[in-house]
């Protein structure tokens, strides 16, 4: 749409600026709060300019958590979160790409049945099956382990479906040409399909990294030991008792730390991410 009317321009920008402010202001307040001392943050109204306790607050949470609530070091939580946020997308991509390869390129009995089984689980979010899953994990004594934290979240119908859709757009002749060239199925998978799926994998990685990083309910149930807390759980554990008892400055510093890695992944992988979602070139 090409229109040149000044007041429309003004309106458009006003709406955009208002939107940005609405999104950015809470983040700004979080940041400001993370730089104040406990005393300053308890004033009403809270100061809206950054204070002088930035280094102090962050080193406190990174090494020793809060003083009144959980004392687990956030640095360790960040490592836990990172393990979870990496294991989930990598596991999901690995399993899904192999599963879709089987479904699209091999004819075996009950092929469509298995596909639909996978597809049906799309309709069941983690929360629906969380109690039985927890039971299984507990029986397997996988509470408070990285395996228990990640394995139940790895199986993914969405990713399998996405790869299947992508594989179906790859021309059959490519598989046939590879066959004539003497490439066996695994060689074709490795040499042709994997490189072609790179952008799809990147897009999935970004989405699933954030999904893994932001997991709340499942780690809350499985990670009961302090050493297994993820950052998101860590924030929850820092909040104890009444409002005045919480060290909001430290909690906000942890919140900022929790927000940075996903933002970083999105910013760094943005180009690939968009490509993976819109790319049609085969």
């Amino acid at each position: 749409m090409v229109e040149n009317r000044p007041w429309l321009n003004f309106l458009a920008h006003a709406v955009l600026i208002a939107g940005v402010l609405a999104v950015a202001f809470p983040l700004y307040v979080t940041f400001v709060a993370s730089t104040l001392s406990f005393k300053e943050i308890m004033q009403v109204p809270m100061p809206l300019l950054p204070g002088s306790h930035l280094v102090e607050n962050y080193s406190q949470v990174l090494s020793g958590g809060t003083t009144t609530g959980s004392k687990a070091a956030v640095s360790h939580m960040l490592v836990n979160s990172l393990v979870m946020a990496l294991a989930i997308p990598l596991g999901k991509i690995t399993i899904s790409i192999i599963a879709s390869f089987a479904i699209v390129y091999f004819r075996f009995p009950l092929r469509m049945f298995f596909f639909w089984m996978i597809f049906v689980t799309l309709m069941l979010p983690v929360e629906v099956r969380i109690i039985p899953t927890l039971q299984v994990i507990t029986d397997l004594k996988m509470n408070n382990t990285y395996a228990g934290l990640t394995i139940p979240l790895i199986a993914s119908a969405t990713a399998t479906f996405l790869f299947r859709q992508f594989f179906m757009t790859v021309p059959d002749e490519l598989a046939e040409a590879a066959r004539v060239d003497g490439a066996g199925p695994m060689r074709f998978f490795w040499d042709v399909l994997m490189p072609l799926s790179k952008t799809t994998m990147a897009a999935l990685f970004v989405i699933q990294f954030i999904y893994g990083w932001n997991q709340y309910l499942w780690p809350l149930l499985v990670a009961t030991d302090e050493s297994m807390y993820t950052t998101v759980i860590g924030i929850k554990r820092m909040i104890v008792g009444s409002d005045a008892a919480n060290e909001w400055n430290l909690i906000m510093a942890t919140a900022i730390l929790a927000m940075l890695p996903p933002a970083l992944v999105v910013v760094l992988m943005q180009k690939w991410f968009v490509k993976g979602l819109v790319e049609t070139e085969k």
Partner: protein
Amino acid sequence: MAAVSFRDVRKSYTPELQVIHGVSMEIKDGEFIVILGPSGCGKSTLLRMVAGLETVTAGEIAIGDRVVNNLEPKDRDIAMVFQNYALYPHMSVFDNMSYGLRIRGLSSSEISERVNRAAEILELKKFLDRRPRALSGGQRQRVAMGRAIVREPQVFLFDEPLSNLDAKLRVQMRAELQALHRRLGTTSLFVTHDQVEAMTLAQRMIVMNAGRAEQIGAPLEIYARPATTFVAGFIGSPPMNLIPRDGKLLGIRPEHLEPCAASDAMLTIDVDLIEPLGADILVYGHIGDRDSARVAARLPADAKVQAGKLAVRYAPGNVHWFDQASGRRID
């Protein structure tokens, strides 16, 4: 290089759905064979059975003296060129051409020697580092052929390789294919629905219709003596005129009709369409009333024609007769 034989080759997907009804043929070593037919006649299926991409339901296919029915494509010593080229999009031209060789474990010096030789023949040397998407249609086609050449196979299989090219490029690639075959002398099977490609490329051709080989022979021989009305109607543009006469079908090629005085007329065409092509003029019309056979004539460029009655005659030697029920040629 090797001979290829089809021995009563059949293909069916289900017991009811048979797509190839028994094709038999001996292809000599080094021959260029074109499989010609309309879409859905089973020509690609036949080729894919030679390649090993489709199973053979009954009969035998032999390459050289080996029956290859149960061999994997890679063990058949064939190379195939696909209609949409099927180049690996993420590999450079060099990698596309050398992929099969690398799988077979050739030494890298041997690989680069073969690829460079093929690139030389196909004038692809400049493009070896490029990705397929950075190439034009004709160049991609050449890469696909290069991929086949470097394998130095017993048999080349071409599945409508020129049909994605524009008209001018197609003519050019046709000539290049011919030159290539002269140079390499490899047995080739070439599937097409384009009769011009078939006529110009083939040493012998198979005309297929509904899963049957209607006629096998040299192009000019087939043109001069079509075995069935299908072949008569499929080859030649415009196709042979088929006129019911005395319970049989009289076949006469459009170029064998010549204008004459009304008193000498062997046919009178009620002309309703005139197409001057420069080199000659195509005239279309009916003989007799509207429902009767439609007839085309190819007249010299200087012929004076206009809509209305046109008297034409033909030499008796140029007439073909076909059985009306079976469509078979009567000699």
